[in-house]
């Protein structure tokens, strides 16, 4: 990681998000919302355009799996495609 974590300058009031416990609350809230959305599939009339859509929680599962795939795929791409920042500025 190239990022360095800077402490807020002295005298600056602490923000709500500076507290790790609050960040944790957001993550927990996200988990709760996701769980609710997943089980919401049981409570509305579906209009499937494809048989895959009839699968319980299809959009949720698809979104999660594909995004993890996207990031892992991009990480693999880095191995082949990443160069120094000044790659094109150098002669060669």
């Amino acid at each position, binding site marked *: *990681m*190239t*990022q*360095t*974590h*800077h*402490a*807020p*300058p002295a005298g*600056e009031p602490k*923000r709500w*998000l*500076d507290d790790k416990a609050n960040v944790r609350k957001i*993550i927990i809230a*996200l*988990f709760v*919302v*996701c769980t609710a*959305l*997943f089980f*919401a*599939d049981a409570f*509305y*009339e*579906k*209009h499937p*355009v*494809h048989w*895959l*859509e009839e699968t319980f*929680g299809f*959009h*949720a*599962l*698809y*979104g*999660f799996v*594909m*995004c*993890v795939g*996207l*990031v*892992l*795929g*991009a*990480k693999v*791409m*880095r191995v*082949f*495609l*990443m*160069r*120094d*920042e*000044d*790659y*094109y*500025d150098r002669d*060669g």
Partner: protein
Amino acid sequence: MTAMADLFLPLNPGIVLILAGVIAAALPERTGRWFVIAMPVVMLGYLYGVDLGNHAPIAFLDYQLEAFRLDALSRIFGTIFLISAFLCNLFAMGDNVDRAQRAAAQIYGGSAIGAVFAGDMITLFVFFELAAVASVFLIWARGTERAYRAGMRYLVIQIGAGVILLSGVLVHVAATGSVAFNHLGLDAPGGGLILLAFAIKCAFPLLHNWLQDAYPEATVSGTVVLSGFTTKLAIYALARSYAGTDMLIWIGALMTAFPIFYAVIENDLRRVLAYSLNNQLGFMVVGIGIGTELALNGAISHAFAHILYKALLFMSMGAVLFRTGTVNGSDLGGLYKTMPWTTGFCVVGAASISGFPLFSGFVTKSMILTAAAGEGHWFVWLVLLFASAGVFHHSGIKIPYFAFFAHDSGKRPAEAPWPMLAAMALTSALCIGIGVYPEPLYALLPYPVDYVPYSTYHVINQLQLLMFSALAFTVLMVTHIYPPELHSTNLDSDWFYRRAAKAVALSAARLIDRSYAAVTGWLIAAIRWAIGIARRNFDPLGVVGGNSRIGSGVVWISALLLIGLVAAYSGS
């Protein structure tokens, strides 16, 4: 005089804006700023005062030019271009742009608007190229060596596309005798060439990298201006002339998916946005390829919404660049503390591009997905769904997260200047307005809209897709699997001309150089050898030149005399 006036009136609003750009260059600083903000508003009023139809027909040689064609398709693009020009000029007021850049922005936007209202291919070509030339000044105005080079590459590619467009037009005109710009399709004479030209301007896969190369190198407000016009003009041109071309469905699908992988690992946040711009164009290209009324309505309305939220995102990153001097994700973080308004507007742009319910992307993009599924393009539909989740992942979350939250970078920049905030506030209002109340936008579309975006299943499905995409991001961040933002360059298709072609050219040059050296070396050796022989024979001790005895000289002279005599007599 009246005849002249009849010939050119009503004037194409693009021409008026181009003239406004020229005038703005001569006006005093303050007046110029307000003048260019007022002009698009005046033109918007003017546009809705003119009747639909073909105006300003001009006979040119044997052809009929239509300098101002106003129909539903050109009007909606003209409308959003004018709105975009207004917002960009307001934003630019905070960026302290100089007169040259201000004039270039007006001529560029005016040319794009002129092209949209062109009823014939010659007028279209002229405006398209004027847009290309004017826009490069927005890149060069950055004033860095990098920007200069990127601008050069951009210009070469844009003008190259223009030459291809002109070739296609000439082939078409030669075969059909008509310059009218209507539906062409691949089978029309010159259709392939014209499509290739639009494909380059629209940044199709492998023809795309001029966009990611050049846009992030432009000035703070220049990138905002650039993001609105060129590629969407290409979308307009494709919708006009290649609707229903099957090939575009697959190309568009590839376009939605391919750039998002790059967006995940790119560090320059304006370049991330350039990749997601490319991804959003893909949705529109798919809609044009499907070509049904629903799909075309989807593509056109998505272009409308896209210009706004993409401008908003580029504005927010522009404001960050303006205040901190960088837009590298690795150097930013925690800016929400001192730039709360910019953060909020950025989040509105992020929610809009991601297609959250109540934001603009939701009511436009979904038409394209519904059309894709309705026409039985299952695989394409799945790709679009993936790209929708992916765009939230990299544009919706990554951009605001790394710029404004994430690690505290220790930077405490001031909030953006008021004109930038005003421009972002108005753009945000439009993004939310379209999302909450899409009917006015739907009413502008070329085909009647029989589509209801807000149905229970659609809202829930979209929220599931997006929130689980957010969940994936969170899980990957918490587990440190998510790739960190790093100072880097990621190789893309521009590698082929910036490195491979350069390497080939250099080795070819070296080969020519070495061959030349070798050949001249051999020639010199041959000449030396000849000189050696001559010297051996003609020097004072040589066979010919030696004069050790007088007799040998006499023998040589007698021999020459004999040869002379034989030659003289045999000739007669």
